[in-house]
């Protein structure tokens, strides 16, 4: 094959460009810290990268959801604790009042105290948190539990008039939070889950107790029945508290798992996208060497010709 000067020159230019291009590409990797500057450099890796960053975004959203669910659960817990304490006190007062040694006026004093606790329970049921009233279901903007002329209403419906179906429908109206792929959780409960419905609701029971105790001669059998109902209400509050505690435990577990997944995904993202600095620097050094070698060899080849050896 004949070799001409312009072939040598063009080869030299091409080789220098190639070596320089490689040098620049490695430099870009080192300085950006990323393996790919364009998805087209490696569509397969870029696809993994997109999938992983979508996954990371989701996990972050779930973590934020878990946090807001936890806030709601804690707010609910403190309201329930308050109600539980009130009922505990009411129970003690009722036992105290049931003793035959007390006079009617002493019992009336106790009733006044019970009335205080009843109001306190009402306040607890209307507790509000960061997102409005916490026990109001979908009603977050207006006081959920209201009382007028002795009738207690939940979201405008009188508790005494409520039947099971209505209560079920209303207490199901709580926001669910997505805490993991396909897993939804109802963090909140409604006031109805505490008060019960119909004639035996918490407030009706308390009212009946007070009415009975303030009589001159309270009916022992009626009182026994009311005490039992009071115990049932108290137990229900305790059950709700246990449930809420359970929810918090579950949130803890979910959060721990989310954190683990987040770490795993971040690790995968880093493996998929990030440059191994040591390796890149070595590759940069190699590219640099190749570039310099190309320059040196090309420089010498292009410079010489037969004319150098003629007088």
């Amino acid at each position: 094959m004949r070799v001409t000067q312009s072939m040598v020159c063009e080869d030299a230019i091409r080789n220098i460009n190639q070596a320089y291009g490689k040098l620049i590409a490695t430099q870009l990797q080192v300085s950006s810290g990323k393996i790919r500057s364009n998805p087209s450099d490696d569509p397969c890796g870029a696809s993994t990268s997109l999938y992983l960053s979508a996954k990371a975004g989701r996990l972050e959203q779930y973590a934020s959801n878990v946090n807001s669910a936890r806030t709601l659960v804690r707010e609910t817990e403190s309201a329930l604790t308050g109600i539980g304490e009130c009922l505990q006190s009411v129970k003690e007062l009722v036992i105290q009042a049931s003793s035959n040694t007390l006079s009617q006026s002493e019992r009336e004093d106790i009733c006044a105290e019970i009335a205080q606790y009843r109001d306190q329970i009402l306040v607890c049921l209307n507790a509000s948190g960061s997102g409005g009233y916490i026990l109001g279901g979908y009603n977050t903007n207006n006081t959920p539990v209201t009382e007028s002329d002795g009738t207690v209403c939940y979201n405008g419906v009188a508790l005494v008039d409520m039947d099971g179906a209505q209560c079920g429908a209303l207490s199901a109206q709580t926001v669910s939070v997505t805490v993991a792929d396909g897993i939804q959780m109802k963090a909140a409960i409604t006031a109805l889950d505490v008060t019960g419905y119909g004639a035996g609701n918490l407030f009706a029971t308390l009212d009946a107790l007070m009415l009975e105790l303030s009589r001159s001669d309270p009916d022992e059998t009626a009182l026994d029945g009311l005490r039992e109902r009071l115990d049932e209400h108290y137990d229900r509050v305790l059950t709700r508290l246990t449930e809420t505690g359970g929810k918090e435990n579950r949130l803890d577990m979910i959060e721990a798992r989310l954190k683990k997944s987040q770490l795993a995904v971040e690790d995968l993202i880093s493996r998929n996208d990030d440059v191994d600095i040591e390796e890149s620097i070595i590759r940069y050094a190699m590219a640099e060497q190749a570039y310099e070698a190309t320059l040196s060899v090309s420089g010498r080849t292009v410079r010489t010709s037969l004319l150098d050896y003629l007088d």
Partner: protein
Amino acid sequence: MSSFYGLEIGKKSLLVNQKGIELTGHNLSNVNTEGYSRQVMTTAAVAAPSGCALSGIGVSGIGSGVTITAIASVRSVFYDAMYRKENALLGELAAKGTAYAYIEDILGKGTQGGILDALSAVYNDIDQLSQNAESSLYREQLVQDAVTLTNILNVTASSLYGYQQEQDENVKRITEQINMLAQQIADLNSSIFKYELSGYTANDLRDQRNLLVDQLSGLASVTVGETSDGRYSVSIGGVSLVSHATVHEIELRADTVNPVTGDTYVSPYWKESGIRVESGSGALRAALDIRDGNSASTPGIPYYLAQLDALAASLVREFNAVNQAGYTMPYGSNASRTGVDFFDPAKTHACDITLSDALLESGCNIAASSAEVAGADNWGNSENLNALLSLRDASGLSSDGITLGNHESFMRAVTIGIAITAGYYADRAETQQTLTDAIGEQRMSVSGVSMDEETINLIRYQQSYQAAAKLISVIDEMLSTIINM
């Protein structure tokens, strides 16, 4: 035999070697001229004149020196044809490589600030809002991020339309260039033909013509032919572009209308027959494919726009269906309503998608609730938002005959699709460059001027010249000897 016979031989040798030195000079001075092919001189011995076979000493006649038979360009028609074929493909692939890289850039690379990011932000906002449906802060945040999404879609689509227009300009430019080159080739054809009537070969003009055809081959696939009497022709796709001194022009006719923008695009047609030009490969093909390609096998701008339009249309349809089914939150004097659109239902293309006026007016018009929001009821109801949220993980969405799966996975697929195409064409362009370079190098190995070779020729002709001069001086001395006897 004449006593001056030797002088005649010496004179011819002097002239021939002088020509050789001049030719070497011509070659050397064109060592860097693009398209120049080296010229070589071929010589032949001149036979002894007939009739003087006996020179008086009983031997046959001595030949009468040297003569030039030809000064010819060294050129391989085979390499020329091969180079042009590969160069046409290179013209197409290089242009496509650049175009797809640009489209990849426009589509936002799928990372920061792209459509995909904006989509995820909208869905995250919906999730956030579903936990606090009464929060006007979260509602406004969703509206803002939805506006960002529509803006990015609008900007991306209009950049693609802009690039489509640019490709249309490219078609015009390339067509003009082809016509111009054709005219130059036709002019050279008649010059070469006239020059060669004298019997000599127009080496340098032929080199110029070959260079023009090389340039043409980057724009479209060309084939050339030459009749035995030296009439040269160039054709594109089997149709004659130049036949000897006549140019068959290509003209532009508006034949494509963009259904969305109403812009008209032009295509090249043969002026005489009115048939569309089939350019084979080359830059013309690339510009047309990028501008008009609407299939997975030739993905052009319309193909990517169709994908964005499918996404936009699906967003409008699905979000509106859900938002219409729910109830808005009351604000000011506006009561809770149902049947409110999320996006403007009349604008279903990526270039014009926008939020409905109701949503732009207030985030309260996001229909989060599944029932009327009034009095104490349903302020925190976000059951309808759950329907929007379930779109995020949907798997069966489709739009305009394009299967989407869900919006985010579709956008991921689009991003990776263009990345694969851009990567493929970048690789092919590089390979094709190497191939074309290799053939170019082989061609240069045949035609290129080697300085070392020419330097040696220079010395060779110089020495022959000196030898011829010596011959003349020897004969001169011989003649003097005879004359002075």
